[in-house]
């Protein structure tokens, strides 16, 4: 099992969710966060253009079985990219998931995902 963590642009969240659902991945966890990659996004404060160091981002966490990893990544890659790809489109991180337990039933492992 893998834990896929994507940091994406807030405006693409709806698209990413839809792409995932189309790929049959419905379970996700979403968190507001802020980030700084290469992206610069100017804001205006009383006539001064300020580069907000940290811009709002969305973190999407998806636990999935190994065979779904590539599908999930592809779906995200596709849906999170703006146009031909822009600075700030985001990142995907993949880590190994050792265990996964469904609280309701207590079952664990691949079926609990």
């Amino acid at each position, binding site marked *: 099992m893998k834990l896929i963590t994507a940091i994406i642009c807030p*405006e*693409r969240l*709806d698209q990413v969710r839809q792409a995932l659902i189309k790929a049959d991945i419905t379970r996700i966890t979403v968190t507001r966060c802020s980030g700084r990659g290469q992206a610069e996004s100017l804001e*205006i404060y009383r006539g001064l253009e300020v580069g907000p160091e940290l811009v709002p981002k969305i973190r999407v966490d998806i636990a999935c079985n190994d065979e779904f990893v590539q599908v999930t990544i592809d779906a995200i890659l596709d849906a999170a990219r703006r146009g031909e790809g822009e600075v700030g489109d985001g990142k995907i991180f993949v880590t190994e998931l050792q265990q996964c337990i469904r609280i309701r039933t207590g079952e664990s492992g691949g079926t609990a995902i």
Partner: protein
Amino acid sequence: MNTLALLVAVGSSDVVTPDSPPIDTGTTAWMLVSTALVLLMIPGLAMFYGGLVRTKNVLGTMMHSFAAMAIIGVLWVVAGYALAFGPTVGGVIGWDPSKLLLAGIDQTIMEGGIPEYVFAMFQGKFAIITPALIAGAFAERVRFLGYCVFIALWSLLIYNPLAHIVWGGGFLTGDAIDFAGGTVIHVSAGVAGLVAALYLGARRGFPRVAMHPNNLVMTMMGAGLLWVGWFGFNAGSSVESGLKTAQALTATQAAAAAGALGWMILEGWRHGKATSLGLVSGILAGLVAVTPAAGDVLPVGAMALGLLASAACYGAIAIKNRLGYDDTLDVFGIHGVGGIIGALGLTFFLRDVPEGGIWVQFGHQVMGVLVAGAASAVGTLVLLVLVEKTVGLRLEERGELAGMDHSMHGEHGYGLLNPN
């Protein structure tokens, strides 16, 4: 019920003369207050609307109200008042060059003992709030520049004539009862909102994507301010500080409470839960419905109108949900429907039987609604096409997805969400 028209006819046509009526400090005080109260409704509306959209559009939505304060605030002084309350030209528009920039009324005291300035400012707030109301129908999907141009034109070309026709000496003045703007303001804004929602189309993703209010807490605060401000709106429309004022205030209070209670009960019955958005929607429905009626119905009639409006608006929104068009904040569902219910329904609750009998009056009322609705519908459509084809009104996909706050204003509303 024709107070406004009479006062204007008498008081403002000529400049100050030695025999101008003495100031009534009490009436003046109340009218000053009413002006402040109606002004308070505009941030109130900004809060009400702002809380209902998604987080990424909160500032942009509030800006729709605030921009109306800036733009119509200036336009009204420059020319709006002259157009709405100048001597009539063919019954459809006023014109009084001496009132441009309000220059000619600098010293005028109106019949009733208030400086005409106060009346002009009071009316100016109505001119501001009407386009701001419309904005709810196309929230979350318009360009700011296009919006600004649209409301400026709408105010000049649709609101001013309507105000003139119904209040300022135009062809409906004196027939239809419209105490504080049920047709001029709410029906016209509601219909304009409907037309705009249909013409501009739904928000991208609607209704597939869930779109939750970002701040119902603020919506409730806004509703509170709207209720308070509405006392100025309705009771101020008596243009006096006396019995009629008291009657209007009482009717307003009774209708708002009844509307709120009605919606609460309806939701409790239908969903087993009364929501806060429902309660405040009921407040609004009640207030809208009592607007044309406030000075002319007994408290019991006001409560009946409030209840009726609540039910009707609830139903209208249910139908909208089935029809599937995207009147984002239900401008037609609340202001259009509530305004119509109020304007027509008041006939049956009048304190004094109208001269020609109830049904003649009902005819006048229907006429008023039709004129306001039709003028607003046609005019709005023309303006929408015009603005869309020139400066552009509908926001392009990228900007809409990013949200108006970022794409139109380069800001975001809640910095507190970002660690800083």
